[in-house]
């Protein structure tokens, strides 16, 4: 076999099933690549060589004994460091959780383990998933494998970098306002945010509970769908998880046909302030969809113009409440000289343990929830959230899916926006409306921008618990572009060279 790290999860699955390669060989190939090249990309916070090989051996034994195993058994995966995995450090990219070893598995991890998926390690992220560049990690910045001077997106930037650098064919991210879709877009891979409640949040360290959702990253639409089906499903341990059958996303990803589908372009997401190379690729994608037989038209989502303001009130408000649990008493960091009161210990621990963006958001949330401001800020934002959701749901009376560019720009330079929080927030402009409405959305690569030769993503948005519709469109777009480019976009990525 040539290079195992270049294969998709589906291709690996076929080889593993045939027996032409073992799970241990597949896992070793990926660990070798990580160990020789991740010094350059810095996508992992923790690599679990030993645990991964042990899991792989178990999968090989199961296959040898002709036990029934799932399609993805033996396929490696990178896990965002915001989901707990028993016995493995979980930091959320924060110093306040440095050294914390969770005593339990998140439901997502339980499902991965049951499917025989090999967890290679935990990936870097913006602290507590707050950010769009992964530069808010308290540990280090991850680099974009397309150009090591650029950001890999965020907050799931370690996961997007790991998949685009061929360290793993699959990764898990979480998306609160775009943290899967934007990193997928700027690294030229596929990433999906399932319907809210489609994937259990048990063991996902909370940022904004009404918005957080874990989802898959992969280099192909089919791989993404396969992982989506493994992760999804009702979980009694998460009361907000939906008790319905999982949308048939794998079947939809394989259709590669959009004939007769009605597709709406979100009118408000584009135009002035958007990078021309992004808009050019988007317009070509629209033409492509039309040529494939879809009916494409513009549709207005008027309140989407207020999504940024709405989100940056609601998410910080929920965060200020969720992050109150980090008080230095039961787990994580405690700053204490032995003579301080409990309150002093909390104040000092939180000051030392949280980074600047987290503190900013905690204070914004505290402000929006405080008496005197609650009605004008938090409550008003919740009402505007209703209107955004209504706009989107009304649009689905008219069209099957909605589309937009995933992010207004391609990957920007490391350091460029770190001191300008508002500029950073603008990266989420297009991904926020579906997040607020709780509906599924994904990003699929549609080419490189002319001016910087960096990847551009197409966002596809579907109605609640109709996740399969976006996979149908993504699969068709990918298939058509694959013919045009004679391969996937990710195959055009420059070769990574290790640091000496």
């Amino acid at each position, binding site marked *: 076999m040539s290079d195992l790290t270049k294969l998709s999860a589906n291709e690996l699955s076929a080889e593993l099933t045939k027996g032409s390669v073992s799970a241990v060989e597949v896992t070793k190939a990926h660990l070798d690549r990580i160990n020789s090249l991740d010094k350059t990309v810095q996508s992992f916070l923790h690599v679990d060589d030993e645990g991964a090989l042990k899991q792989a051996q178990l999968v090989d034994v199961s296959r040898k004994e002709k036990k029934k195993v799932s399609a993805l058994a033996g396929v490696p995966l990178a896990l965002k460091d915001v989901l707990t995995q028993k016995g493995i450090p979980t930091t959320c990219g924060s110093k306040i959780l440095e050294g*914390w070893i969770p005593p339990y598995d998140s439901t997502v991890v339980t499902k991965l383990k049951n499917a025989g998926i090999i967890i290679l390690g935990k990936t870097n992220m913006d602290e507590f998933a707050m950010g769009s560049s992964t530069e808010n990690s308290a540990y280090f910045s991850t680099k974009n494998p397309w150009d090591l001077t650029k950001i890999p997106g965020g907050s799931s930037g370690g996961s997007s970098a790991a998949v685009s650098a061929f360290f793993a064919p699959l990764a898990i991210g979480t998306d609160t306002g775009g943290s899967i879709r934007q990193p997928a877009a700027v690294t030229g891979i596929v990433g999906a945010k399932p319907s809210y409640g489609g994937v259990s949040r048990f063991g996902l360290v909370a940022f904004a509970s009404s918005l957080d959702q874990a989802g898959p990253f992969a280099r192909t639409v089919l791989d993404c769908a396969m992982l989506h089906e493994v992760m999804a499903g009702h979980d009694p341990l998460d009361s907000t998880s939906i008790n319905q059958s999982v949308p048939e996303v794998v079947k939809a990803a394989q259709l590669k046909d959009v004939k007769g589908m009605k597709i709406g372009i979100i009118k408000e997401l584009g135009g002035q302030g958007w990078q021309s190379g992004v808009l050019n690729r988007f317009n070509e994608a629209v033409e492509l969809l039309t040529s494939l037989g879809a009916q494409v038209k513009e549709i207005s989502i008027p309140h989407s113009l207020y999504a940024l303001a709405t989100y940056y009130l609601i998410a910080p408000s929920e965060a*200020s409440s969720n992050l109150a649990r980090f008080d230095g008493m039961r787990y994580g960091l*405690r700053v204490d000289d032995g003579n301080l009161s409990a309150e002093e210990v909390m104040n000092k621990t939180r000051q030392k343990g949280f980074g600047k963006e987290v503190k900013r958001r905690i*204070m*914004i949330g505290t402000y929006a929830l405080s008496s005197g401001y609650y009605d004008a800020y938090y409550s*008003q934002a919740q009402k505007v959230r209703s209107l955004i959701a209504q706009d989107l749901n009304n649009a689905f009376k008219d069209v099957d899916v909605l589309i937009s560019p995933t992010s207004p720009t391609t990957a920007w330079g490391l350091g460029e926006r770190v001191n300008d929080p508002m500029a950073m927030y603008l990266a989420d402009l297009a991904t926020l409306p579906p997040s607020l409405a709780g509906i599924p959305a994904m990003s699929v690569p549609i080419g490189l921008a002319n001016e910087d030769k960096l990847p551009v993503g197409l966002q596809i948005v579907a109605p609640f618990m109709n996740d399969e519709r976006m996979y149908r469109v993504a699969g068709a777009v990918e298939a058509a572009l694959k013919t045009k480019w004679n391969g996937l976009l990710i195959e055009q990525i420059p070769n990574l060279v290790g640091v000496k």
Partner: protein
Amino acid sequence: MSRITREEVANLARLARLELPDSELDEYAKQLEIILESVAKVGEVTTKDVKPMSHATGLVNIFRKDIAKESLSRDEILRSAPASEDDRFRVPRILDEE
């Protein structure tokens, strides 16, 4: 939109249990003001008779049977505690002198 002063930042930090050093107050005041000015845009929308949305799914009150089952052991929980004593979390003094 009123200006965010150093004093207001200090008060927010106090409410949020963050011991911000004085040297950081000005920077946060400036940034919070920009952010709050921008998010105040939600006020432009007419929301008379609009219900606030706290959640995407509309689910309410999910019940389950109250059945005792095995949970994590005390040792597993206390292993990640910053300090423990006699099978309990050891925490700083909450009340003043006894």
